């Protein structure tokens, strides 16, 4: 599903070269729930951004569904980002003026589908994440946990090949976080591939596989549970 082959990411700081990632080779199969752990500055988010086509590797190759993200046109990359990948962020990134239902439907609306067609899909997803009674609420009327559920529903609406989550509960209390992880886990058990960056071992423990980055390299790779098929 996602394949990284000797991937590196280098930044220039004045005359100095800073290697955020070095020589990372990794295969992520369909149905995996991969947790990426590591201290701050270890390259976790950079790795996630490379997988999602939000950043470009300076060395090596990144494949998504067999297509080389490092060697396709910007238009193609944009389409992959929009249709094949669902993103979940720490700060939810919902649009404040839109209702929950409109936020969930946004990726399809941006793709040009009429709201009449998008609406039932958004409603069904809000039901799936337990928020069917919040469809007309705006983000400011929702709790943090509810906002993240809306963001998860939004990430799901295109039927993405993979969900990429960057510290999805970094801003939530322990109990609310657990409910978000149980939701992600149930999606994974239905076959959804998920890659999640976290510094919290309690969060990582929900994954079926955990990798640890250290100073931009892959330090540990362990498979825990069986992968949903």
């Amino acid at each position, binding site marked *: 599903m996602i394949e990284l082959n000797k991937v590196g990411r280098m930044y220039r700081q004045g005359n100095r070269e800073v290697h955020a990632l070095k020589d990372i080779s990794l295969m992520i199969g369909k149905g995996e729930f991969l947790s990426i*752990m590591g*201290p701050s500055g270890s390259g976790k988010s950079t790795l996630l951004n490379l997988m999602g086509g939000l950043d470009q590797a300076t060395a090596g190759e990144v494949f998504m569904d067999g297509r080389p993200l490092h060697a396709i046109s910007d238009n193609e990359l944009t389409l992959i980002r929009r249709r094949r990948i669902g993103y979940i962020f720490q700060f939810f990134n919902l649009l404040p003026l839109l209702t929950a239902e409109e936020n969930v439907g946004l990726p399809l609306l941006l793709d040009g589908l009429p709201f009449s067609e998008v609406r039932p899909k958004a409603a069904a997803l809000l039901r799936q994440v337990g928020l069917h009674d919040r469809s007309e609420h705006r983000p400011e009327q929702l709790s943090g946990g509810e906002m993240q559920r809306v963001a998860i529903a939004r990430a799901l609406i295109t039927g993405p090949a993979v969900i990429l989550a960057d510290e999805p509960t970094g801003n939530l209390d322990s109990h609310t976080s657990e409910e978000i992880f*149980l939701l992600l*886990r149930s999606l994974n058990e239905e076959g959804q591939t998920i890659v999640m960056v976290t510094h*919290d*071992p*309690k969060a*990582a*423990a*929900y*994954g079926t596989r*955990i990798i*640890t980055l250290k100073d931009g390299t892959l*330090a*540990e790779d*362990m498979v*825990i*549970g069986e992968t949903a098929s």
Partner: protein
Amino acid sequence: MSIKYALLAILAERDLHGYELKSSFDHKVGEFWSLNYGQIYSTLDRLEKEALVTHDREMQEKRPDRKIFSITPQGREELAEWLATPVGKIRALRDEFFIKLVFMDKDDPGPLLALLDKQKALYLKQMSKLTQRKMALKKAAQGPDSLTGELLMDAGLFHAEADIRWLTLCEAKLKAAVDRKKTSKR
């Protein structure tokens, strides 16, 4: 110390024979705390001397009499007081790993850093297993007993998380110390 109160708490629910006490204890807290019959009977002895527990004899045909234990009003009072009192001491620092830390060479930190990594990976694996069991428990059952089980697994997860965070801090401090040494030698 708290074996005494665990037994009192079990007897507060109903009168029991010694072996029933043991199986109830195993059912409720056996997962993280094991007791043998000897400990149970010696604790019951002590509780009787303190007048917190009494026993009746139950006649059995062809077999010796059995003792059936019950909690006294005084026992209930002491149990209630114990339950309501917060625990005053934090967990003891007598983990086997701490002993290793004391004796490992900090001037040549390579082996120690490798050990920290292995220890962290092990805790992480245990946390994964605990999380899987917690999810299975949540799916299988509802009710006060399953909630208690879930909360205890949460406690295990939080403790392991604290250990991992501490191990990460150890690593950072060890590396910083090594770097300082290198710089001062220059």
